[in-house]
């Protein structure tokens, strides 16, 4: 660059000298020849200057291009390793249900987007929405969970906000439709049944190695607002566990799950428990309000998973209980209890999978025994088509609301 500038200056000086000489009065033929030669030299120098100017412009253009490219490369690297990451995951399903007492119905199922917003390996925001369309075409949107997870150290994560209940295994880990091997939840493991759905509070959870061969203790302990007993017509209708955003009774519920995972045996065992006091919510006309009365509450659960080769066997038992309360308009307490046992087999390397599930759900009002058989086609690890038939046998005095039904579902996790 500096060299070119020097040459440009020399050329300009030569041009000036030539011009001066050209302007001087000359005499004779020799002088004319000299003048002609100088003129030719001058033209050559002018041409050279134009050429150098062109080269200089080209060089400037290339320098600018390099600068732009460097900026672009820096920008691309930002995408590879930023301190903050945003990621969308989730799942969606569509399906068809045919029961004996009603005509077959297409269902849009649910759309559950999950947002992850993470700062390095320090903190992560996680949130899931559950969107669905009901029979009348109304779209409902619910906040499934919203937590801020602080990775305190390698063995402890502090989770605060509204979280999926860590009690049991199905509700916190198996209920998403692309994971659940049947199109329906086991009886008693749906919303506001025997297995708690969500909680609002704070929990600590994580895993700790317990031997050199990979065995691990998995734990989760929490304190939260707790559920509420829904009172209707002098009875406890259900135990509401949607993750209540308030705690009118002022009494917290404490609980957790301890699990042991033996990877060598492909076996996982878990025990869950919770206790505390819960409030009552009573429907008065169209409004719902806390009665100001509290009751004892406890939960017990046990679960296991065993995955020998292409088989998978799972089982879970849960029991949720609220105590008697003479001061209540529904003085008698109640127990909601459910269990299921599920086996599946995948025909490797093919994409077909068969599933069978047996379970029972008992409430103070009803009891149902459920059997389900299913056939799945796994298009991709996260895209599954399911066909199943559920046999539901009422065993209690009142109807459980469950009917025999054919279920078709396509589910996609992303």
């Amino acid at each position, binding site marked *: 660059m500096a060299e070119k500038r020097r040459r440009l200056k020399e050329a300009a000086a030569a041009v000036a000298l030539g011009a001066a000489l050209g302007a001087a009065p000359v005499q004779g033929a020799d002088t004319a020849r000299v003048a002609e030669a100088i003129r030719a030299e001058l033209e050559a120098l002018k041409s050279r200057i134009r050429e150098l100017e062109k080269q200089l412009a080209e060089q400037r253009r290339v320098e600018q291009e390099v600068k732009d490219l460097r900026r672009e490369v820096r920008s691309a690297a930002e995408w590879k390793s930023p301190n903050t990451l945003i990621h969308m995951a989730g799942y969606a399903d569509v399906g068809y249900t045919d029961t004996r007492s009603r005509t077959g119905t297409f269902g849009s199922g649910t759309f559950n987007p999950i947002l992850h917003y993470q700062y390095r390996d320090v903190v992560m925001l996680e949130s899931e929405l559950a969107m669905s369309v009901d029979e009348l075409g109304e779209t409902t949107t619910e906040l499934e969970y919203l937590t801020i997870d602080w990775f*305190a150290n390698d063995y402890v994560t502090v989770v605060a906000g509204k979280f999926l209940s860590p009690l049991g295994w199905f509700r916190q880990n198996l209920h998403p439709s692309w994971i659940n091997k049947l199109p329906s939840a086991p009886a008693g493991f749906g919303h506001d049944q025997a297995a708690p759905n969500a909680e609002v509070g704070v929990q600590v959870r994580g895993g700790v190695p317990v031997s050199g061969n990979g065995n*691990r203790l998995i734990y989760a302990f929490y304190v939260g607002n707790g559920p509420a007993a829904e009172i209707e017509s002098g009875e406890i209708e259900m135990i509401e566990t949607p993750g209540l955003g308030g705690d009118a009774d002022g009494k917290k519920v404490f609980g957790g799950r301890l699990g042991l995972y033996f990877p060598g045996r492909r076996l*996982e065992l878990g025990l869950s428990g919770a206790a505390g006091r819960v409030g009552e919510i009573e429907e008065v006309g169209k409004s719902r309000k806390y009665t100001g009365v509290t009751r004892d509450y406890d939960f017990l659960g046990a679960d296991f998973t065993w995955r020998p080769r292409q088989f998978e066997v799972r089982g879970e038992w849960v029991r949720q209980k609220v105590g008697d309360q003479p001061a209540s308009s529904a003085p008698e307490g109640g127990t909601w209890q459910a269990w299921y046992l599920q086996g599946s087999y995948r025909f490797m390397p093919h994409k077909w999978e068969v599933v069978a599930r047996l379970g029972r759900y008992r409430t103070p009002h009803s009891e149902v025994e459920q059997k389900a058989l299913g056939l799945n086609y796994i298009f991709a*690890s996260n895209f599954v088509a399911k066909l199943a038939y559920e046999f539901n046998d009422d065993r209690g005095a009142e109807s459980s609301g469950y009917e025999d039904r054919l279920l078709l579902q396509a589910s996609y*996790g992303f």
Partner: protein
Amino acid sequence: MGKRTMAVLAGLAMGPALLMGHAGAVWAEYPPEGDFVRGARLWAENCGRCHNIRDPRELRDDQWITTVYHMRVRGGLTGQDVRDIYTFLKQSN
């Protein structure tokens, strides 16, 4: 709120950091490089505990970071497990 509840809440929130120290110090790179071979084994052992195993090529490196940290919370993985699994995933996609 009772004193007992407040003490439990404070313990849940601050106890882990006070007792065990905060490992989330700012590293030059995150997650730090883990063990590829151990990561491959942990990927095979853990992902299928709940769902079908996902192919490493299904996501980009940055998407795998958030995914493995999400699974750390869900599946009770340790921090080292996550670093090893991520190392395997990013080198295999």
